[in-house]
Every structure is written in C-alpha cells, then in structure tokens.
C-alpha cells in the first residue's frame, strides 16, 4: 500500500490528504445516436455520457472518511491533485461514497466521482 497521498480541495476550501487509493477505475463514455433511414445507417456522436472514476482504498484516518462524507452531503465540487495522470487531476462531484468497517484499524472505502471539468 502506498503511503503517498493525493490532495482534495473542496468548495468549502477544506483541504485534506488521503492515502493514494489501491485501485482507480476510469470510465469515459459517449452517447451515440444511430438512425436507420431508407436502408442507410447514420451514426452520430451526441456528446459525453459519463466521465467518472471509482477510487477504492483503505484509510486508517477516520477524519478522511468524515471529510469525504461531509463533501458528499454538501454536494460540493472537489478538486483533486497529486495523481500522475492528468485525467484524474481535475474537478469532480461525488456521486457515491461508501465505506466498510470490518477489520480493525481502518476503513475500506469506495468513492465514485463524476468529472465536472
């Protein structure tokens, strides 16, 4: 497990430093329109459907967990930096946040973010 951290700055200017997640899933989807007209198929791009990431990790600091929950409750945007991937270092909004307490000493969490810009 990495001991490195990334940086989260929320709308409320709360800044905190979670441990880097164990896994990051990145998804970027498009909306395609497909139209059959007189035996011809027309396919066009109608824009982005989603661009999200799911961060999964293990956090020992309960305050970090509470920060994520507070941002989710407020519906704030949050800016992430510290990842080595420019697709992740962006401004996001929390779509889902969950954590599980089943082993002593920490919390497994999952954070799904939708990209704002």
């Amino acid at each position, binding site marked *: 497990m990495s001991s490195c951290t990334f940086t989260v700055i929320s709308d409320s200017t709360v800044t905190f430093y979670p441990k880097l997640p164990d896994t990051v899933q990145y998804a970027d989807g498009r909306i395609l329109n497909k139209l059959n007209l007189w035996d011809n198929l027309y396919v066009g791009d109608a824009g982005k459907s989603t661009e999200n990431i799911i961060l999964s990790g293990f956090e020992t600091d309960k305050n970090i967990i509470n920060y994520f929950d507070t941002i989710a409750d407020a*519906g704030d945007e949050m800016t992430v930096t510290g990842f080595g991937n420019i697709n992740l270092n962006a401004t996001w909004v929390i779509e889902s946040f*969950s*954590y*599980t307490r089943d082993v002593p000493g920490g919390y497994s969490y999952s954070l799904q973010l939708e990209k704002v*810009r």
Partner: protein
Amino acid sequence: MVVSFSITQSPLSKNIWLYPNSNYHSGCTAVGEANNYECVDEEYDVPDNDTTYVWANRESSVTDMYEIENHGSITGAINYVKIYARAKSHIYSMAGTGFYRILAYHSGTTARSDAFNLINDYNVYSFLLLSTPSSGAWNWTAIDNLRIGFDLSSPTVAGTPTNLTLRPNSVGTLTELADYPVAGDNVWDVAEVAQDGDTTYVYNNDGHVYAYQTDLYGCEDHTTQTGTINSVSIFNWSKDASAYGVNLLVCPCLWVYGAAPSTKNYYTLTTTYTNYSNTWTSQPSGTAWSWDAIDKMHIGTQLRTGSTGAGGLPRTTQVYAVVNYLGPYNPEIRTTQCYAMVNYTPSTSTCYLSRPYSYTYNNNRQINKINTWAGERLVYDVRRASKTLIMTGFEYPRPDSVATTTLNCVCAMKDNGTKITLSGIGDTLVDTDWIIQDFNYNKNAENPNIYDWTLTLERYENV
C-alpha cells in the same frame, strides 16, 4: 465481557380503542341484541347503524352507561381519552330543546360533553378528556375503571302525519235511511270496526226514482291528540244490492255544528261493497279544522236510488272518519356505537445487540449531467439519493439476555416504524438517527445457538 451497542426508540403516540363489555346503567331499550352494551360495541370502523342499537324517546333525561374493556399489557404515558358515540334522531331531527351528551364516569365523578342536537342521520359525536372526570391525570388504572355512555332528552316535535279513526257512536242530526236487521238502531249497523257486509247495514227504501236519503251519526270525540289537522275523510262501504238498478249513488258526508250538512263527490255504486271516501281539508264553512270541530262533527252517508226507483237497493254497511293530523312525536334517539379511544405514547425502548462484525455506510447523491446545444457539459450535484447503513453481525445467548428476545426487540422497533438512535458503535457517522428499512436474522447452520443478522437502515434526517 460482551461488547454491544444500543438501539433506542421513542415511538410516536398511538391509539387503542376500548369497547363496552358490560352494562353499568341501562335506561335505553336494546334492539338487535339482548344487552344494551352488545348493541353499541361494534368496532369503530364497522358501525352497523340500525341493525343493533339502543334507543329512548322520553323528554325526561335517559342515561345509558357501560363498563369498557381493560387496557391489557399496554404501557406508556396517556395523552388523552376521547369518547365517541354514533347516534341519530330517528326520522325527525331532535327538538331544539332536546340534548344528547356523552358521559364519562370515574371514581364518583361524571363529566359531560357539550349538548349535541342530533339530526336524522347517523353522525359520530365525541368528547375529549385531557384529564379524568375528577380532573386528575390519566393513568391506566383510571382507564380500567372508566365508565362511558350518554344521556339524552327527546322532547316532542310537531311532526309526523298521523291518522285518527273515529266511528259513529250515537244517533246524529239526521236519520232518513232504513236499517237492517233491527229497525231503528241505524248507528250500530254502520259502526263496526271491520265492515260486515250484508249482516248489518242501512239502506234507501224510498220507492221513487233518484230519491236521496241521508243518515248523519254522532261520532267519537278525540282523546289526547293534539297538533295541526290536515284533513278529515269520511269513508262509506256501500253497494248496489239490485241486479238491474242504474245510477245508484253514494256520497260520504259530514256535518259540523253550526253549518249545513256537507256533501261532495257522488260515486256510482257497484254490486259489491266498495270503500268510497270524501275528504275535507277544512271545515265545510271554510274555516280550518280544530279539535273542537272534530268533537262536534257528525258523519254519515247519503244514498240515492236509481232509475228504477225500487227501494232497498243502495246500501251502506260501514261509516267512519279518519282525521289526518301532524301528531306530536318524540323521535327515537338511537345510539349504535359507543367506545373510548385512548391516545398514549409508548414507553421508550432500548435493544442491545452484539456489535456487528461488519458495517457498510453508503452516501449516494443524485448528479445531473447535461450536454448543452452549445457543446458545453454541465455536471452538478442535485440532492441526496440515499444514505444507508448495512450492518451484519451475530447474536448468541448471553448471561443477561436470550438471543431471540434481543432480536425480537429490534423487530418490534421495525414494526413501530419511528426513528431509532444508535450508540456504542464508536463512529460519529453511524451513532446517530436512522429508520429501520429491513431486519433479517437466520439461525446459523453450524451452530444453532447463533443467529446471523442483517440490519439495513436509512439515515433519518428531518430537514
């Protein structure tokens, strides 16, 4: 030491309904059941109206009181007691001076509701008691000793059309007809209660054609009747006794002292006895009917011979008068339901479950993602979608509790439906208020003393 966490619930107020199960005082008459309390003990949402009820129609006060069921094992703080009665004034609304009051009796004191004036259809009336009739605080012993009921007064209303039948009882002001079988006692030949046909009758024995003869008889007086008289009708059971007469007529007639004998419609007789009548909505003089005029009235029959002129052919076997009047009426005050509703707040309860070996907290948001025509993309948070907590653990017999008792304690909270408060988990996001969405437990297949449970909660937020 067993590490547990607690679930605390303060339920919202609840109602229980207590129904009569014994008579305490019976002033009314039961209909549909043997005992008064059985006539009014239907559950509050299934009234049977006129199938079973108790009634009274006296002007002087009438009281019906009942003992009610005990509260059983219910505990909690009593907020108030409300006594209900479903009642009506039968056919006519209650007189303005009448009343219907709901009563509550406890420990020597009777509390009375405001007086209700009943209409002629069933309505539910209630009496709220924030304290006992003797102004003490409610407790469950007072509930068990409570008596409920009502008192009422139903004065007369001018009301229902009523018929009074009066029959001949003396020789009247005119006697022209002959009679059969004993000559000279005409009045008794037509005074029978059920017409007796050719057994006794009066008849026209004039030998001329189209000759009129009339009998008028003294009539019974009214007795206790009062009220406005609508009309007086005179009835004659008459017939044509010939086989060859033509145009024999009868006219039921009357006479009131001070006026001329009054006739009206003439009817052509047939060969079988038929009931003919004439009706006067006022006296023959034109003045309204009075009970004095009724007592001075003579009633009778006028018979006309036919074209042959042979006597003895037109006959009348019965004469009587019917006075139609708006009689004074004491409406029946009917009560079909009487019950008490006790509103109380159940005691706060606390369950102690073993700490879960795992719990998962979910905070889900509704996010809008919009691609605009201008090519921009908007992503923003809208609102909370759900905030759930799923806890899994197991329960086993402990020195101070039985596993199933603890689990059933949580089940009861789930059924109550109100919010619960968790404490003892040691997580500020968890030790807060929730609503139970689901609670399941299974007996462990490997160890039947252990129950695996799952508790699903939704965060309670009232903002």
